[in-house]
């Protein structure tokens, strides 16, 4: 399963965080791969609407674009961070944490 996660918007634009991050579950330790797959299933990801519009007048909201691809199907969802569904919220939090971890690890690798 490949998951592509992009985050944008928010109260300030972070150039260093605006590139999407791709996670492939075959490259993760088994526990982490299972956890991610569980979160996607519990969030009922493949049934989520492709976009959800922010309320009128909303500003400084974060937007997330999540694409998930498996051998049999793929789906892309665009969300704002005004997420009411707690399972979707949990998935987004998990992906954000993993993204930051991945970027910190890359920074450590690149720093002599």
């Amino acid at each position, binding site marked *: 399963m490949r998951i592509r996660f992009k985050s*944008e*918007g*928010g*109260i*300030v*634009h*972070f*150039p*260093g*965080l*605006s590139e999407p991050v791709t996670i492939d579950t075959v490259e993760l330790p088994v526990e982490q791969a299972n956890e991610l797959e569980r979160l996607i299933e519990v969030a009922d990801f493949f049934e989520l609407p492709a976009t959800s519009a922010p309320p*009128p*007048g*909303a*500003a*400084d*909201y*974060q937007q997330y674009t999540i694409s998930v691809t498996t051998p049999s199907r793929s789906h892309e969802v665009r969300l704002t*961070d*005004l997420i009411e569904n707690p399972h979707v919220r949990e998935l987004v939090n998990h992906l*954000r944490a993993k993204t*930051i971890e991945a*970027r*910190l690890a890359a*920074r450590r690798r690149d*720093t002599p």
Partner: protein
Amino acid sequence: MVFGDGFLMDHLTELTVAAHELTHGVTEVEAQLVYHTQSGALNEHVSDVFDSVVKQYANGKQDAEKADWLIGEGTWRDDIQGTALRSMSNPGSAFDDPLIGKDPQPGHMDDYVRTNDDNGGVHINSGIPNRAFYLVATRIGGFAGNRAARIWYETLRDRQLRIRAKFREFALLTYINAWNLFPEGDEANIVKNAWAEVGIEISQ
């Protein structure tokens, strides 16, 4: 209102951030500036203007020249290199950190950023009108709430301000409102020159 969630930032209910968010509410009622590209950057800019003025008011109606013109000062987590989220006086100088990148704000139309990110760069290109306001406020002098912010507020409420206004349209309206509010003074000229310095020519 969205205040953010503390992943990389602390103290997100700091006064200026709260004022910034509340001003989005005012903008929605008064002007409905569409949250995309230039009109969106103006929407962001107006929030930054009023959050700075609120902060300067709280500092005892501070003189514009003495203010720091920083938005969201002190909101970064300790290990992030930056002083603030944005700087109105010096766009592009608020942060520079290996993880989050460098403050992308331009201070002149020559450096306007065309992007699909951030709703077309609404938090990025707001640096250009932000610098114009900073120039207006410091050149008029005194507390920015007295005259500079009044001009800007009248512009926000101006019926001529379209929801998809670009910078030039907004600039022209600040000039007209400066004339209307202060027909005897230098304010209108100061406004015109400030916009010219950020690369926007006002021609009636």
